[in-house]
């Protein structure tokens, strides 16, 4: 048996064992973490090895006599597998101290079981080699993650999240199935091999349906509605895996469909690029409007999916307009951002998790000043934030840099491709600025300043596994940011299995780029050191004292006077008011002895708003109109039968 399957088996065993241990909390947790962690580690090493060797591997199983379940691994799969296993490993380790309610022992073991199922099914999705295997793993992935989402089913919000998630994943799966159905209609086989030879209309249809299906899993606007509900609802290590890894499986699907179709029309690139820009900008705008920490991170995932899609879209445009360099840069940048985002987004979710566990609240308006007592969490969270803003010398910059380079290659093209490249570049810039605003807000409000409520006062950060599992991705954020060589090389390798028709992609131009990034990052670090040294020198033998913050003359400051998260974002959001309407609740003060009043504001997601108004309500209305069919009168029931006969007899 291949190591890959061995690791999957270990993971499943690690998930199933806790079910049998059940009530003995510590033993159960140890077994789960050890099993799942070991499996993930093995899988990660194995697929990393396969990625570096460019080893292809495939295995086929007979299924229900008629089908075969084909699993095969090329460098694209291996690239995603590394991410899946690595992040799952980190999350698993984290969970040991995060899942800390012995009262919920059994539920926790169930959670571990579905977690292991989720990891395995994700790994199977990215290796699936035919429709049956793909759909099977895809649906198991959806179902198992649903159970993870409703782990805390007691709150109505989480139930709603679970429901939305379930419905969206079903609709998405149906859309993918439609795409596969059309494909099967042309080729008559469950494999993907013949997809290159079908008609163009068929290819376009397949791609559109697949894009909707995969896009709804990846959280592409406007199919992202479930995402900001579902990701925060799950326990934080699960959120990390869902946001960091699971939505990337949707990206994988888009790439895979693109590669099997062998159809290099500009249409696909335009579609993906526009979807990416819209998701990117709106995602970060909504993120800016959230006051729930985990919801904010979830919306930021929408944004990052947008960035990834911009990269892929630029790649596709590059392919269609015969610009190999642009194509490879776009795809590689997108893929690298997949890896980067999985690192810093899981890091941020884990950070949010530790905040949630220690303070008991997810509302950023109730937090503040956590940095003082939670040094490691604060520092790693800061690194994650810097990385997610795409700032050098962190990993986020590297991915975006490649995408930019690809996009600027597209500037030399004509007409539509030019216009789209231009828009892609400008929206990347805007996204960058907005996410800087968004994450400076998070860091500033949550970790800095003074505690805004008692919940945030005097918290520690006990829980070694949690801290370790945050330090590791943080280290990788810096590592990739400074030495991206290996990682860019793997991304380019993954691109080469997209079958763009370039044969072996030469690595040298990319290595030069990497060298530049490394040098620039090193330069930055060097200058930083110098300035730090200078600063130390300047402070030699100087009096340094501490006192309260300067209140500009006001001498009685309270913590409530601090700037809030919503006021921080308010003016930016005003700019985006047409797409991010703000709902305010503020009873006016009336009468001589006015009642206590309050002010509440929330930012609405137009996709969610219009989904209710334009889709759900008409459907409900329509079907409610038809309720008279079942009116209870037997005479008309018999009439239906007669009617059916009479109508049919006309066709005889």
């Amino acid at each position, binding site marked *: 048996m291949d190591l890959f399957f061995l690791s999957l088996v270990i993971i499943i065993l690690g998930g199933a064992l806790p079910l049998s241990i059940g009530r003995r909390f510590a033993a159960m947790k140890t077994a789960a973490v050890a099993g799942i962690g070991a499996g993930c580690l093995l899988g990660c090493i194995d697929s990393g090895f396969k990625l570096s060797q460019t080893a292809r591997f495939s295995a086929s199983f007979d299924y229900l006599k008629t089908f075969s379940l084909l699993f095969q691994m090329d460098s694209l799969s291996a690239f995603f597998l590394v991410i899946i296993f690595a992040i799952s490993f980190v999350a698993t380790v984290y969970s040991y101290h995060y899942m800390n309610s012995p009262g919920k022992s059994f539920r926790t073991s169930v959670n571990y079981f579905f977690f292991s199922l989720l990891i395995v099914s994700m790994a199977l999705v990215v290796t699936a080699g035919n429709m049956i295997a793909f759909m099977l793993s895809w649906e198991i992935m959806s179902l198992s993650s649903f159970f993870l989402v409703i782990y805390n089913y007691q709150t109505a919000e989480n139930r709603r999240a679970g429901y939305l998630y379930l419905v969206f994943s079903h609709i998405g799966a149906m859309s993918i199935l439609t795409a596969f159905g059309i494909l099967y209609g042309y080729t008559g086989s469950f494999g993907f091999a013949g997809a290159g030879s079908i008609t163009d209309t068929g290819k376009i249809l397949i791609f559109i349906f697949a894009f909707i299906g995969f896009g709804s899993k990846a959280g592409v606007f406007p199919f992202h509605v479930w995402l900001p509900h579902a990701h925060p609802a799950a326990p934080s290590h699960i959120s990390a895996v869902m946001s960091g890894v699971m939505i990337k499986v949707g990206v994988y699907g888009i790439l895979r469909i693109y590669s099997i179709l062998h159809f290099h029309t500009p249409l696909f690139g335009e579609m993906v690029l526009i979807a990416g820009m819209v998701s990117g900008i709106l995602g970060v705008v909504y993120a800016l409007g959230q006051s729930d920490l985990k919801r904010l991170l979830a919306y930021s995932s929408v944004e990052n999916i947008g960035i990834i899609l911009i990269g892929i879209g630029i790649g596709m445009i590059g392919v269609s307009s015969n610009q190999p360099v642009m194509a490879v840069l776009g795809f590689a940048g997108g893929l690298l951002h997949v890896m980067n985002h999985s690192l810093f987004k899981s890091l941020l979710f884990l950070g949010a998790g530790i905040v949630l566990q220690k303070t008991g609240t997810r509302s950023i308006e109730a937090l503040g000043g956590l940095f003082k007592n939670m040094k490691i969490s604060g520092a790693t969270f800061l690194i994650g934030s810097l990385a997610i803003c795409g700032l050098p010398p962190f990993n986020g910059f590297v991915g975006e840099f490649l995408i930019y380079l690809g996009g600027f290659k597209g500037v030399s093209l004509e007409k539509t491709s030019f216009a789209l490249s231009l828009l892609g570049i400008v929206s990347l810039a805007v996204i960058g600025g907005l996410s800087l605003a968004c994450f400076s807000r998070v860091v500033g409000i949550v970790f800095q300043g003074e505690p805004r409520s008692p919940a945030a006062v005097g918290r520690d950060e006990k829980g070694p596994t949690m801290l370790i599992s945050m330090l590791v991705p943080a280290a990788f954020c810096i590592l990739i940011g400074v030495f991206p060589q290996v990682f860019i090389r793997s991304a380019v390798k993954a691109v080469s299995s997209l079958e763009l028709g370039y044969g072996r992609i030469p690595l040298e131009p990319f290595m030069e780029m990497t060298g530049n990034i490394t040098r620039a990052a090193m330069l930055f670090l060097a200058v930083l050191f110098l300035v730090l040294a200078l600063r130390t020198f300047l402070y030699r033998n100087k009096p340094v004292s501490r006192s309260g913050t300067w209140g500009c003359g006001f001498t009685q400051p309270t913590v409530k006077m601090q700037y809030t998260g919503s006021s921080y974002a308010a003016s930016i959001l005003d700019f985006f008011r047409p797409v991010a309407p703000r709902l305010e609740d503020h009873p006016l003060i009336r009468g001589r002895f006015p009642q206590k009043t309050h002010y509440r504001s929330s930012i609405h997601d137009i996709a969610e708003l219009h989904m209710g108004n334009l889709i759900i309500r008409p459907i409900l209305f329509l079907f409610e109109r038809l*309720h008279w069919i079942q009116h209870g009168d037997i005479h008309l029931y*018999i009439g239906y039968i007669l009617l059916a006969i009479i109508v049919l007899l006309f066709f005889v």
Partner: protein
Amino acid sequence: MIHPIDTALSLVILSALFSFASSRLPGLIKVLAFQGVAVSLVPLFIGHEMTSGGVSFTLTTMIIRGVIIPLSIYLVIKKVAIRREVEPIIGYHASLLAGLVLIVAATYGSHKFNIPSSTHPLLLPSAITLLITGIFLLMTRRNAIAMVLGYIMMENGIYLVGTTFSVRAHHIVEFGILLDVLAGVMIMAIILQNIKQTFDDVDTAHLRTLKE
């Protein structure tokens, strides 16, 4: 020459028309009994070779269709003692007219099909008449008992089609069908009794609570 089958079938059609307009249940049941007898006798006259089995089967059919089934419904009426007439959904005179139109239309429509030449010319029209009368009663009568009678009439019509066309059918199969119909009517009779006991009425307006 007036063939007995012509007479029988004409009478059947007439009785069907009568039941369109009939407002009294006992009368309707008598009509039904007559139909049952007439319909069961038809095979005797169509001129297939007679066997003793065939004759005895015809007699059994006659007893069941002409006596037992009407009687069981009649007993229900007796037992539950209907005091009040229930107005039908479509009035009696309008029913009669509608019935005539439907029968003519259906007979005309049946010519679309390639009918075996050996068939008696009146057979198909009378079968269709019975069928339509039955369904019409089912759809327009609020009285539950009248609806059951409609069902029986419909069955008679189908039987008429069946006996004539399907020469191959074994008697045992025919008998099975008959038994089914009988059991069905029995069960309906029991339900009718229960309806009467539960609601103190046989108006189906009481039976409209299960809906969306």
